[in-house]
């Protein structure tokens, strides 16, 4: 177990290094930051001046090493647009996005777990078909389209919920439903497939033969086994939610990381874009590492096989 964990950790670190280098190069390779910085009415001299002040005239490798070294120390540089500390800026916006991602995951699990289990218990019944329909619609509906429709109905027409902002829990309801519904189908399918597989397996049949009640078989034995891949998927989905909330944050004017990322992209505010992309990548690497270790602990075959 320890060797597996160390190996896995080493891989995670390597991935982190490559990802940060990619994030840096990919974004730096395109576009001239100094121009965006100079603003309306700036002259060529001003732009050259800015290039020098911000060290944008040095070789890329030097810029990367300098940037990475500072990143590790928690110094994310200065925003080209806001002219403030990126660290503080990101820290300020992080909670909103983290909350949104967390709420969405909880919502998705709350919907997809019971539905997935019921669908597995009664395959091809009306409830199974309902789940399938919900899943298919969830996958086909563009999230921004869904968001706008919810906004019209619940905020403008019924006035039950606020339109936009992030001041209270009520502001999070609509975005949570949209994002949660977007990731729910995948979880639901996985729960359903896992449950069907486990219910058909020998030991559940044995348990049933021993006379255990249906409910305890489902809850104690089948569910626990079917949940293992769900935990892993949830970790991945959480990472996805953090990076994928750009559109929803923009629509609902939720002042989070996704919206900050979008702003920084349109303003060519490279330090902020790089910091967010790198940070989200690192969070993803961390989440998958944790999920893999948890899985290995739950399922000894993985750490022996080491493979997929």
């Amino acid at each position, binding site marked *: 177990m320890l060797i597996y964990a160390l190996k896995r950790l080493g*891989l995670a670190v*390597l*991935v*982190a290094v*490559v*990802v940060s280098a*990619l*994030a840096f190069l*990919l*974004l730096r390779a*395109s*576009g001239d930051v100094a121009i965006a910085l100079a603003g309306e009415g700036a002259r060529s001299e001003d732009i050259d001046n800015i290039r020098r002040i911000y060290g944008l005239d040095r070789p890329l490798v030097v810029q990367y090493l300098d940037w990475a070294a500072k990143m590790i120390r928690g110094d994310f540089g200065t925003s080209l647009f806001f002219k403030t500390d990126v660290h503080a800026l990101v820290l300020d916006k992080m909670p909103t996005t983290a909350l949104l991602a967390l709420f969405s995951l909880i919502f998705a699990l709350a919907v997809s777990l019971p539905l997935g289990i019921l669908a597995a218990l009664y*395959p*091809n019944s009306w409830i199974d078909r309902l789940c399938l329909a919900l899943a*298919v*619609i969830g*996958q*086909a*509906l*563009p*999230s*921004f*389209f869904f968001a*706008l429709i919810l906004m*019209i109905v619940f905020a*403008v027409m019924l006035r039950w919920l606020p339109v936009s902002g992030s001041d209270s829990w009520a502001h999070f309801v609509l975005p949570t439903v949209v994002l949660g519904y977007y990731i729910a189908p995948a979880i639901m399918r*996985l729960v*359903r*497939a896992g449950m*069907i597989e486990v219910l058909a397996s020998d030991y559940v049949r044995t348990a049933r033969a021993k006379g255990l009640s249906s409910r305890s078989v489902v809850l104690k034995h089948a569910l626990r086994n079917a949940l293992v*891949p769900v935990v*892993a*998927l949830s*970790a*991945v989905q959480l990472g996805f939610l*953090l*990076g*994928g909330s*750009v*559109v929803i944050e*923009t629509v609902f004017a939720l002042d989070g990381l996704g919206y900050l*990322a*979008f702003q920084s*992209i*349109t303003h*060519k505010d490279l330090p902020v*874009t790089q910091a*967010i*992309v790198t940070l*989200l*990548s*690192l969070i*993803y*690497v961390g989440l*998958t590492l944790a*999920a*893999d270790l948890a*899985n290995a602990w739950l399922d000894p075959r993985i750490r022996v096989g080491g493979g*997929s």
Partner: protein
Amino acid sequence: MTDVAAIPVLDLTTASSGKLLRRRIMAHRGLLIGTGLLAFIVLVALLAPLIAPHDPYAQDLSRRMIPPIWYEKGNWVHPFGTDNLGRDYLSRVLYGAQISLLIGAAVMVISGLIGTALGLAAGFFGGRVDMVVTFFITVRLALPLILVALAVVATVGGSLWVVILVLGLLKWDRFAVVMRAATQQVRVLDYVAAAEAAGASTLRVIVGEVLPNVLPQLVVVATVEAASAILLEAALSFLGLGVQPPLPSWGLMIAEAKTYMFFSFWLIAIPGTALAVLVFAVNMVGDGIRDVSAPAGRG
């Protein structure tokens, strides 16, 4: 990796006989509906120049925002009404089908080529090759797709081909993951070993023996990826960093109609529905193929 585990890999090693397969296809309602809808949309896209009542680019500022026929003020000259520049909405929706299908197909081909090549290589050769490919996949998965796509499009400048290229180069991960796992299963089969023993070249074994056997999975992934590419383009266009006007992409049409949603709902509802139906159809086809080709039916 976690994602590899998360995607169920199907056991396709027992090939169904042709007759059985046909019966299954005919019995699968979802597949039939999906195929029917998709065929309809493809037909509409191909025939757009013939069936569109107007030039989708021809504007007339004096005929703006005419509602569709199911509204009181609608008329048959513009069955779906006109947009904010007086362009015929039906014609734009019809031509928009071309763009969404093109994006779905082109992204699918680009990412499919990259992902399949990587996945086949990793699954077939194993060892170091597998390690390197797995590493690539992990790195790719760690990058937040939408943000990177937005950032690249923002700097390069949005256009149809830029969007296709960016999404194609970013979305190969699922192809690689599934192809790798499927190839690993096929690799150990007798006839693959037999072909190798008979002295067939590696490339020949991969193309001639392995690829046909992983094809059903490939098709399933391809549909999922096509659907997701179409949605992603729509999201990019929605944020103003996708396909650029005057091209009638459905995503772009939604983006341009969003400010009209409170008073002229049809402007957003029509392309929104078209987009949802297309993605629905593609997904149904994918699900259907998965069910039909899996030995134990659905699930």
